């Protein structure tokens, strides 16, 4: 049996552990404590057991927010993954065009998230926004009043903001394919489609797994952009989990229900993070995902 030789290395991890304890472990313990009490102020609390969990699990606004969240993440993946791959395939492979397109693609990723919301508020305003006013010449469009328009605006913003990430990852994957594969495909007389299906797509599997999971997690935790753009409205039509959570925990200051909600949200995120971690581990080992 193999013996551990580097147990002393654990001491080097200690500083990180202390930081994580203060930034994550102690706060999450506090949230667990909050979630089973009714709290009015420091030191003023009553033990309520699992009441908040039962209330939150039965809360139909939470169910709605959860389904909305899955719908949003699903649409994000459905649009951004194929679009990102297509853009990566269309990008030039040599010459000055490579740098030019890489920089252009990266620009949306460099803008702070709340600024993105502000940009799109102005851009899509029906009265003065370039996009909003132009579309209103053809059909009525107002993301502040009509749920469907709010979703369309949100999806446009999300796709504009994050498709470049998928594209950059897919492009990196494409560039890593040795030229010999393409030569072999050419000799066999393979069509563009079969080259894509049998060479490029399988070779991109690793980076696409990363892109898929990153995009899923990010869109599942999205807060700043919809908060700035729609504030969760009109009505509750774009109230995602994080927006609803902030409403309960910080605006209504219901720490107990907020804590229970956080932990339900947390176990969902934890499950997907773990699957993400497992998939990445296996990409690293070159196993089938």
């Amino acid at each position, binding site marked *: *049996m*193999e*013996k*551990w030789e580097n*147990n002393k290395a654990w001491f080097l991890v200690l500083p990180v552990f202390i930081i994580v304890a203060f930034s994550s472990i*102690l706060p999450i*313990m*506090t949230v*667990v*404590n*909050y979630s*089973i*009490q009714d*709290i009015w102020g*420091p*030191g003023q*609390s009553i*033990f309520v057991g*699992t009441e908040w*969990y*039962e209330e939150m*699990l*039965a809360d139909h606004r939470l169910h709605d927010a959860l389904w909305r969240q899955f719908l949003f993440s699903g649409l994000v993946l459905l649009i951004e993954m194929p679009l990102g791959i297509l853009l990566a395939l269309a990008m030039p492979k040599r010459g000055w065009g490579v740098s030019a397109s890489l920089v252009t693609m990266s620009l949306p990723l460099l803008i702070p998230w709340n600024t993105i919301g502000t940009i799109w508020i102005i851009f899509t305003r029906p009265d003065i926004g370039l996009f909003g006013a132009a579309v209103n010449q053809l059909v009525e469009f107002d993301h502040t009043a009509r749920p469907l328009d709010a979703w369309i605006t949100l999806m446009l913003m999300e796709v504009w903001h994050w498709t470049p990430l998928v594209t950059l990852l897919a492009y990196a994957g494409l560039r890593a394919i040795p030229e010999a594969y393409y030569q072999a495909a050419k000799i066999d007389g393979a069509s563009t489609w079969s080259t894509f299906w049998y060479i490029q797509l399988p070779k991109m599997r690793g980076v696409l797994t990363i892109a898929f999971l990153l995009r899923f997690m990010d869109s599942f935790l999205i807060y700043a952009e919809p908060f700035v753009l729609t504030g969760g409205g009109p009505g509750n039509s774009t109230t995602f989990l994080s927006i609803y959570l902030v409403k309960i925990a910080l605006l209504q200051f219901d720490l107990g229900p907020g804590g229970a909600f956080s932990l*339900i949200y947390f*176990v969902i995120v*934890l*499950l997907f993070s*773990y699957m993400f971690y*497992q998939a990445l581990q296996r990409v690293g080992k070159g196993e089938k995902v």
Partner: protein
Amino acid sequence: MTLTLEWMEWTLPTAIFFSTIFLILVAMTIWQTVAPSIERRGFLPIPTTPGDRLFIGLLGSAYLFLAWLALTDFTLWIMLGIAVVWMIVVMRWG
């Protein structure tokens, strides 16, 4: 400056909960040092170490508890029993 934990609003059940998890982690660390384990394949779809199985067991228990609260009105002690059985099954055969 004095360090107080009052702001964390501790209760006895949560203290017991976190102490138990802490003790399990300590015990498993000692166990791993005394008798190092290797990755193996059980009924779970991925090869796992005892640490992986502990994590999967605890996360699975969290979902079981939430489902129990959402779907039934029975006491949580029954669920605790189910969770213990589930932990043993995952640790032993997972």
